[in-house]
Structures are given as structure tokens and as C-alpha cells.
């Protein structure tokens, strides 16, 4: 009986030691895992492959409009790449949303923004989803600035209807 209890006591100590060690190790692992998303989230591909871009609020709007992704740009991509939103379109989406935010914060920019969004909405070459977003922004800005609805024939029906999905 004495031997059995001594053995049990020793086994308990060993198990406790192993538990403490594994807890320490798990803690280290969890720190690594928690830190990983931040490290990986650094936009490796974007910062390495894309040139340093001018912030949207400092851009020449005419030049920027010329560079918005077009339907012919999409034709250069593989089937797999167009299965979900292509990177170029995602970048443009991010920029347009950032510009709209700048205009929200600086109402004095609304007039130039209205012209920009109108131009973007009317460009046939630009991708439908971006045109629809521009159309929605132009309609809203026109209401705010002039109290009128902007509903021109130069923007196709499908773009206008898509805009109602925003």
C-alpha cells in the first residue's frame, strides 16, 4: 500500500509538471498565433507589386478616372481570377469608398466630387459595379447640392438598377 501511494504521488507530480510545461508551451503558441494575423495582414503582395499611390484626396480626378479598371482589363485575367472580385477592382472599390469618405468629411469638395462621380458613371468602359457606385453617389450629391434627381439617358438602365442594390 505504501509503495502504491508513493508511486501514485510520484505519478501525480510528474503529470502536474507535464501539465505546467505544456501550459507554458501552449501560451507561447497562442501568442504566436495571435500575433500572426497582424504580421500576415501586412499587404505583402500589394505593397511589393503595386507602386506607391497618391492618396485619393490628393489625386488629379481626371487622371484617376482614366485609370479606373475597365472591362477590357478584366479580359486579361484568368477564369479563376474573375471567380471572385479581381484585385484591381477591389483596389478601385477601396479608393472610391475612401474618396466618398473624404467628401463626407469635407463638404466643400462636394461639387468637384459630383462631377467626378457623374463622369465615372457615364464611362462605358468602366466596370459596371464601379459605375453603379458612382451613379448612386452622383444622385445623392445632386440631391444635396441642387435638390434634383440626376437620371440621364447616358447612364444605362442596368447600371441605374444595379445602383439600387447598394
Amino acid at each position, binding site marked *: *500500500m*505504501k509503495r*502504491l*501511494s508513493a508511486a*501514485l*504521488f510520484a*505519478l*501525480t507530480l510528474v*503529470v*502536474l509538471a507535464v*501539465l505546467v510545461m505544456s501550459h507554458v508551451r*501552449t501560451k507561447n503558441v497562442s501568442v504566436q*498565433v495571435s500575433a*500572426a*494575423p*497582424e*504580421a*500576415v*495582414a*501586412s*499587404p*505583402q*503582395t*500589394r505593397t511589393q507589386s*503595386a507602386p506607391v499611390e497618391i492618396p485619393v484626396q490628393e489625386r488629379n480626378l481626371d487622371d484617376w478616372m482614366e485609370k479606373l479598371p475597365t*472591362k477590357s482589363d*478584366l*479580359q486579361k485575367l484568368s*477564369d*479563376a*481570377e474573375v*471567380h*471572385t*472580385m479581381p*484585385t484591381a477592382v*477591389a483596389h478601385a*472599390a*477601396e479608393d472610391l*469608398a*475612401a474618396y*466618398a*469618405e473624404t467628401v*463626407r468629411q469635407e463638404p466643400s469638395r462636394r461639387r468637384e466630387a459630383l462631377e467626378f462621380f457623374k463622369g465615372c458613371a457615364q464611362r462605358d468602359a468602366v466596370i*459596371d*459595379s464601379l459605375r*453603379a*457606385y458612382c451613379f448612386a453617389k452622383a*444622385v445623392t450629391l445632386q*440631391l444635396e447640392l441642387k*435638390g434634383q*434627381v440626376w*437620371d440621364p439617358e447616358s447612364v444605362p*438602365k442596368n447600371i*441605374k*438598377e*444595379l*445602383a*439600387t*442594390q*447598394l
Partner: protein
Amino acid sequence: MGGFVGISVRVLIIAAIVCLRPSFSHAFSYANDVPSYQQWMMESDLKYLERVPGTLSSPFLAQIMKHQEFGAGHLLAWLEGRMKIITGAAFRLNVSVVGGESVQEEEDFAFAQTDAVDSRSKVLLTNFGGPIYAAGKRRNLFYQVEVPGIGNVLVDSPRVGLVRVTDALFESIRSRSRKADDSLHAIFRLHNYFHEARHSDGNGESLTMPHVQCPEGHPYAGRYACDYPVNGAYRVGSEVLSALVNKCTDCSQEEKDILGLFRLDEVSRILNLTTNKEESELCKTIREWGRTASFCAQEANEDPSLGGPVWDDKGEVAK
């Protein structure tokens, strides 16, 4: 002495329980080639979904979930029934016929080869379980796939839920932000999971709810990047995106706009969708100004509840 033995036994039992419990619960099973940070993020995404309170607003999803009032729990159960085993970007497809030899250079599996997911590509994730089931069905046999760390997975259903993820899925959307684990990114990834999960559905001609070629004039013209029915993968993904954005309490307007633009891209791929425009934010704004617009006028829907033609989405059961 007896008391001492008793304490020792209790300590050992507790130790056994502590040792045997999983380190953290996994909704998905992961191949051992999925980096731990990617597993962590995917599990975090599911926890984000779990925490979404109350009911979600989407008549379309209510029909898909078969619950008039549905919440995050229903969405999660739906997802877990269709997306189960996750492999990493470096995964090499090793398919064999059950009880037979390994299948090499099989045309049917070209889509799932690693080469198609090279480092330059921005493919985010691929559901390759459904297409492998479909390939087996065409040959009247079952395939099995060897998944490292898991073993052979019998592909006897399109709902086997084999999905490969790539590093691109976990990158930051916003070039000005280094965070990829906030609400914006959780919603972005979750809506992609639901899109892929939808490819585990369907039967007969609708098996895997495949995409169709986009028509002439469409931004993705000629590519298999559109949906004919209004209940395909792009609709499921875009509705989940919209429902989660509506529930997001810490998304800025700018982040909502980014996700809104993603939604527009997906909705533009649903070829036959007509929806209730009057309920849209844009048309509401116009109405608030006491104005009207031609594009806010309603048209008759083929199927008012879903907004167009639908495909049978029941999961196929192998005979």
C-alpha cells in the same frame, strides 16, 4: 493514507480531462498544410458569426435556411453542412478510385490542381469536393481524396465540403490598414465561405450550382463567372454580406461602402435578378427628398419572393 491516495487519483482524473480536451474547438477540419494563423482566422470568423445578435434581415436567406426568422446559428449550421474540410494553398490533389488505383493527370480535376493557384493568382478559395463528386458520378464510381493529416476522404456526396484556401484570402483588403482580423475582413471572408458552400448544393443538372458564361457586353463576358438562377452562389454570398453589414456595429461608413461595392460586383453577375428597388437606400433617399426616379419604379417579378428563376438546390444523395 487512503485520503492521500484519493487526492492523487482525483488529481490524475482532472489531469486526464485537461489533457484530453481539445486546445480550441474547430468547426472545420483542417489539413496539416493549412497554416495555424489561417486556421485561427477562420475559427475567429465563425466566432464572429456566432456573436451576431438577434435575427437577420433577408427574405431570400430565410427561404434558403427554411426558417422565417433566422439568426447566426442557422447560418452557421447551414455553412457547416457544406464546408467541412479545409486544405491549404500548397495542397496537391491526390485522387483515387475507392478500392482502386490513384488517378493521375485526370482532366476532370484540372481545376483543382495547385498550379491553378500560383502565387500571382488572387484566387481566394475553391470548393473542389462537389466537382470531384460530379466527376465520379459521370464515371459511375466514387473517388476518394487523400488529405494530409486527415486521411482518405470518401467523396460520396457534393456536400463532402472539401475547400482549399489560399494566402490571398487572409490578406488585408485595405492597403492603408494592416489589420485583417476586424469586422470588415471577417464579413468579407465569411461571405466568401457562404459562396463556396453553395457549390456543395444542387442535384442532377443543378449539381454544384455551377456558374454560367457571362453574356456579351457583361464585364466578365465569356467567363464562367455569372449565375443564371437567382439562388446561386453569388446571390447567397451577396445576401450574407448584406445581412452581416446591416448588423455590423463597428463598421465605419467607408467600410460599409467597400463591402457595398463588393456586393455590387456579385449582384452584377446574377443575370436574371429583379429586386424590390423601392426598398433600396438610394430610392428611399430620393423619396425623402420628395422626388421620383425612373430607376426606382417597380417591375413585375417572375418569382417575387426570390426575384427570378431558381434552380433546385437540394443536395444530391448518391444512389
